[in-house]
Each structure stands twice: as C-alpha cells, then as structure tokens.
C-alpha cells in the first residue's frame, strides 16, 4: 500500500511541497543569508558578517524602543484578554437564557480585519480625546492604550469560545462531590476547574501571545507608529526599516531574524511551561 501511495506523490504531495518551498523555505533560508549581507535587491548582496546585527542595536534606539513597547503591550493584553475571556466563559456556561446570542455577539469582532479594526478604534478614541483637546497622536500612551483596547475587543470572544469548549469537559461529578464536601466556590475554581481547563489555557496563551507579538495591521491603521515612531511595534518597525529608506534592507533582515528567534523562543517556552502544568495535574 505504501508503495502504491508513493507512486501518486506528484499529485498528492508535490503541489503543496512546491508552494511551500517557493514561498517559505527558500525565502526563509535566503533571509538568514541576507541578514549577513548588504543589499538592495537580492542579487547585489555583499557579505558583511555581523555588521547588520550590530547596527540593529547601535544605529539608533528604534528597535529597542519597539521591543520594549511590544513586550509591555503583549504582557498587558495577554493578561487582560485571558482574564476577561475566562470570566465570560464561566458566565456563559451557566444556565443563562440567551447565552448563544451573547456568544455570537462577543465573537463577532474577531472576524473583522486588522486594518478595518484600526480605523474603527481611531475614530472612537479620537472622538473621546477631542473633548480634552488631544488626539491619539498627541501622546504615545494613548496609542498604547488604544492598541490594548482594540486587541481586547478583537480577541476576547475568540478566546472565550475556546474556554467554553474546555469548560464543557470539566467533570461535573467532581464539582458536585466537592460541593457536598463543603468546598467554597473559589476553591473549586482553583482546585478543579482551572486544572481541568489547562489545555485550553495553553492554547489561549499561545494564540494571544504570538498574535500580540506579531501584530501589524492594527498597529499600522491605528497610529502607524506615531508620534515619532513611539508606538511602533516590532513588526511595523521591521517593515519601516525595509521599505522606509533604501540601503537599510540588510538591517531590516537582521531585525527579522532576531524577531523570529524571539517569537519562537517565547512561544516554545510558554508551551513547555503550560504543558508541564497540564501533566502535573
């Protein structure tokens, strides 16, 4: 049977492999190579060793600023999204009338694209700030807060759906037994419910964390990094390095390599830590 299947590899396997090779594998390894060169088009690359990587940190502080902004954004939005989403999931797994309607409403923003989301919230935040004589561009804190609110609005419903699916698998008998034994609600939450939904927590943390770090469209539409690149997150910073001025492509590619490593390390670390928690229980 295996041999039979392998005869059909040109139809079964080759199309996907070819597309993957051309749009991901080759660009990925070419990207690593180019991060050690100076280039404006791919063909004129000159090897320069670690020069680009040094430039990332010494040329100007923009990359470190973006890194710090992104880290702060990720920590705050990951925490707030998951707490709100989990709380909503707890409420919506209770016996409440019309819970499907609420579920539908809360999930809706997740279907709207990042660019559109950015302009929606720009209108609202500017409308509020106008009463005090400001706009979202007057202070980087406004942009920061705007991005956190936007991200919460977009992702709470998505994570809520995942938590609801997890909560529906919590063994009911255990909770009943604990109640009979006189355990308090908080104790049941921390000793039974949360350990039982640990797999959902792993996934939700993974999705919110990687989405927060990779955020681009929302950032571009809401503030585009203004004022003075102070609300520029990592993805936008790399984009601006590549396409903002000619001659910095090598530095842009070096930033992209650092960014990829960072995202991979954080994602794998988080998966390792929360998976370990899953097995402990």
């Amino acid at each position, binding site marked *: 049977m295996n041999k039979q299947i392998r005869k059909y590899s040109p139809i079964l396997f080759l199309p996907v492999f070819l597309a993957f090779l051309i749009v*991901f594998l080759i*660009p990925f390894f070419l990207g690593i190579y180019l991060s050690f060169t100076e280039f404006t088009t791919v063909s004129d690359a000159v090897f320069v060793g670690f020069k680009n990587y040094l430039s990332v940190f010494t040329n100007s502080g923009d990359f470190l600023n973006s890194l710090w902004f992104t880290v702060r954004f990720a920590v705050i939005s990951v925490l707030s999204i998951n707490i709100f989403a989990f709380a909503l999931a707890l409420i919506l797994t209770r016996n409440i009338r019309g819970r499907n309607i609420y579920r539908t409403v809360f999930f809706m923003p997740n279907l709207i694209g990042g660019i559109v989301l950015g302009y929606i919230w720009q209108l609202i935040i500017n409308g509020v700030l106008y009463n005090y004589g400001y706009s979202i561009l007057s202070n980087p804190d406004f942009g920061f807060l705007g991005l956190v609110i936007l991200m919460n609005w977009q992702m709470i419903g998505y994570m809520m759906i995942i938590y609801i699916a997890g909560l529906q698998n919590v063994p009911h008998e255990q909770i009943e037994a604990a109640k009979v034994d006189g355990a308090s609600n908080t104790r049941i939450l921390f000793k039974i419910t949360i350990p039982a939904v640990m797999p959902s927590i792993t996934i*939700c943390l993974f999705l919110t964390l990687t989405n927060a770090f990779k955020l681009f469209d929302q950032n571009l539409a809401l503030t585009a990094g203004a004022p003075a690149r102070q609300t520029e997150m990592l993805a936008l910073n790399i984009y601006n390095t590549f396409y903002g001025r000619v001659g910095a492509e090598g530095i842009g590619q070096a930033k992209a390599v650092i960014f990829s490593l960072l995202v991979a390390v954080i994602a794998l670390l988080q998966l390792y830590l929360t998976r370990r928690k899953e097995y402990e229980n």
Partner: protein
Amino acid sequence: MEKRRPFINIILTVILIALSAVFIAPVFIVLLNSFKSKFSISQTPFVLPNNDTFVAFQNYITGINDTGFLSAFGWSLFVTVLSVAVIVIFTSMAAWYIVRSGGRFAKLTYYLFVFSMIVPFQMVMFTMSKLANSLGLDTPLGLVFIYLGFGAGLSVFMFVGFVKSIPLSIEEAATIDGCNPMQIFYHVVFPILKPTTVTVAILNTMWIWNDYLLPYLVIGTDYKTLPIAVQYLKGGYGSVDMGAMMAVLVLSILPVVVFYLFAQKYIISGVAAGAVKG
C-alpha cells in the same frame, strides 16, 4: 443539573447585556457616521446625524468610487474562495500522504510545516515578495499559489492530526476492492475528514479575506483586495476623507457580518475544534 439561581442570573444577564452593547457600539458608531458629512465626523463622532450633517448615501458613492470598491470586493472574493478551495484539496491530500506513505522525506517536511506556523511573516516578506515577482506570481492567481504555501503549515498540521485517527483497515478494505490511491482518498478518506475540512476552510477564510500585507507586497495596488482598498483611502491623499472612510468601513464589515450570521454555528464550532487540535 445545576439549579437555577434567579438572583445571580439576573445580575449576570444585566452585565451581559451591557457588555454586548459595548461590543456592538463601535460598529454602530461607524454606521451612524457613514451618513454624516465628512467634516462633522472626526470631532463629534458620538452625535447623531441631524438636518445639517445628514448626507444620505453621498459617502458611499464617494467611497466606492475612490477606492474601486466593487473590483476590490471581487478580487477579495476571487482570491479567498479559490485559495481556500486549493488549500483544502491539496493539504488534505498531502497530510494523508505524509501519514500513509511512511517516507522519511515526507516526515521531515511535516516538521518544517509545523515550524513555519511560528515564524513571523516579517522574516520572509522581503525575500518572498522579490522571489514571487521574479517568478511572475504577482497576479491574483499567483496569490492563490502563495496562499497554498503559507496556509500549508496550519492546514497540513490539522489534517495530519485527524488522518492519524482513521483506522487503516477501512482503507485496506478499499484496496482489496481494487481502488487505486486516488480513489481511496476521494471516496473513502476525504468524506471522513469533513469536520476538519470545515475547520480548515473557516480558519483560512478568516485569515485570507482580512490579509493586508501579503497581497500588498506581492501585487501592490494593481489588483486591490478589500483591506488594501481601505488602507489606500488613507495613503492615497494628504488628508483622509472621513465620510468615504466610514462608508468603506461599513461596506467591508457588512459582508462579513452577514456571512457570519448565516454560518455562525459552523464558524464557532470550527474555531473551537481548531483550537483543541492546535
């Protein structure tokens, strides 16, 4: 069964209704402003349209004309539908091949597919768009091919998870009946994969329909998709026509919401199922 506790449930219902209002309000405010004159939007977005500011569908006409909205909608639909179809067909076959062929090379590429899910787009955006341009992939059809490559990671991963759970004996029975691998896949395996197919289709639709940077870098504004058309309104002029912007935002949200209301059962269960396997 949990017994109903009316008092707590009333409080929770009040909270839920208030929160629902908060979730719907932003879209509603954009809708209101899309009927106001462009100078009365930025500063007073929370004021209802009145005799002085109401402009009926003027913003919609401007917005549709300035962005080439109808063609953008068409291209978005074309690229999304075709890409999702191509992704579903080819990644399901590839996943089956990876699991059943037992080849070492196929195994290795599987790990590369999984790895590609974590890598941020910025890592490959420059080299990928240069390569795509030099290969002539900077067309709407080329985009379909590119989406197959980028969609492969998640889609192959999810199909592989499901194929592993299908008992081999079903396929062996079909072999004895004289089916060749293609027939086995399309008559036996693909129908069993249906729940995963729905999930894969939904996750990819949500991504491709809303994707901005990839199509922008690959084909720029020659064939605008919807997100590019919206962003173009901002980039194309010195100052933004807020009226046209509001109208275009409403027009971009409307098809998504309509589609969602019809398919929400599948979308929500698809997303939940996708997460469990992810």
